[in-house]
């Protein structure tokens, strides 16, 4: 019984802690701040430096596609 109570208390404690941490993240918009200040600049840098195909080199075959009704 004692063990069950202890486990139960522990579980409640963990849940409260998780709740507390998540709520703090939520309430202080820590997710937004992380994404705005770190994740997005990092990703932006990545996308800006990505090698991309020069699409203007794409051929433009005049007769490749048939006329359709």
């Amino acid at each position, binding site marked *: 019984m004692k063990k069950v109570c202890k486990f139960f208390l522990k579980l409640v404690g963990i849940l409260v802690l998780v709740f507390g941490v998540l709520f703090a993240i939520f309430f202080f918009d820590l997710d*937004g701040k992380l994404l705005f200040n770190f994740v997005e600049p990092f990703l932006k840098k990545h996308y800006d430096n990505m090698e991309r195909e020069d699409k203007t080199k794409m051929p*433009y075959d005049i007769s*490749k596609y048939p006329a*359709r009704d």
Partner: protein
Amino acid sequence: MDINKIKKGFNDFWYGKPHSAEEGGRRLGDILEDKTGLYKHREWRGVKDTMYYFWNIWCYNYLHMVIDIMKYGGLVPFAKGVWRYRWVGQTYLPVMHWFDRGLQGLRGEALKGSAWHYRGMVNASIVQFMYMFVADANLNKGKKNYWHDHTIAHNETLWGGIFYPWSDQYRNVAIEMIPYFVTCHVNSHTVLNYIDAIQSIGLPGDPCPMCQAEAGIFLLDDVPDYANFWLSDNEACDASVSTSIIQDWLWDKPLYAMTQPMRFDDPIAKKYCMKEIEGAWKFIEEQTGVPFNYELLCKRLNQQNELMRFEWEKWDVAANTSCYPINGVAQALYRIYQSQYGDLPIWHEVDAKVRKIMEKCVAKKINTFPKTRHRVIAWSCAPLYYSNWVVWAYNCWGLNVIINMDSLMFDMEIRTDEYEHTLEDIATYHMWAPMRRMAVGGMHHIFELWDYKERFNCDMVAMYDQLQCKGMQGVHGLFEDEFRKRDIKAFWLPHALPDSRTVSRAEIRRGINDFMSTVMQEEPLDPSLLDFDDSMTW
């Protein structure tokens, strides 16, 4: 000890601070960080609503974003997609901030109803980009897999219902819906890359920036290679027609242009349009080798008709009561996401939840937007980077946007009793697409504003002024004349659709502030929202 102070403190904690300044208001502007629009802390809405927001919206949606990704393709294609495509990497993560912007200041049933709409849109967006990634040859070292051969690509303005007859074997995904349209709402930074790109090869800056961006995505090699062929259409405007010139060049895949008549009231036009739709179906049959399935088309159309019927119920409540539990931005975006893609399970799920909320509001006569001073109808096309201006307008001035023009397109059921009727209705449906139903085919359509204003019991008009929309610019003066003649309170809201650099959010707010204080001679409900800097916000 001042007992009143304690009592107020407790009430503020338990119920949230009251809205208006006279009541010792909540001052929503004070919780925003300068420039970024991030929150110093998220809004305290009272215990019940804050917990609802935290648990049922924030936690629920973060969790479901992960679940949805697992459900529709898994983490690997998602991670590859994020790494490969700017529009998803930069946009997917701040989704909860999009909720924040759209739900700011809401309480009770309005908070719940509007949030469900957002949930629906997020799920539908995930479905679409995951379908793209799962089929994407770019993410598979150029190899075309099963889904690449079983996914149909089309312009975002081409209604998804066209593909119902193949929906048991084929998926359809609009090319620009997520890379362009959704990103503008969630994170308006990404689209600027595409606009700049297309202008860098000589396109002038004046065509519709939506179309510019839709071409720019192709130029920047940011379109997944997820289908063998595609279909385009001529919705709305000259620029959207012309965009396909660039798209065809840069994508180089077999294309069927499902063109629709401009003068759609013309009885002769419908017959032509029906043949065009049949042409599109024939093209799909040729490309897929799978025959057209009328039963499947009807089954999906019937499901879609259910969505339309509920939309009418919503409009009825919005028009005739003060119990409508959805704010202007959730209404507008959900309607366009839903009707443009067509039938999806999530829409039914969301509608069932919203129905319950709405029925409760009506039964208990809950005034969902109690600080409404003016019931507003928003006309023409909205600024995508600031679709949540309506949230600000309600919080700051009590302007409650009841309905908007683009929600009113596709306003019909499609008959499924016999093939001819179905085809005829699909033709009408498609000709009544967004930015088309009111903007082309004769000037009388755009002036239906007066009827809708009456029907929705609105006393004010928010007139969007998309600076690069030639069709709407071309009726500017007549609207001015009519507003004056009819003594209608109307304000113009200039913007450039996705491009926040042309008219900033602050400029939009300033225009409304000026109108409300000088023309309407009113005081703001929340003065902290009058002037703030969110120039760098998503």
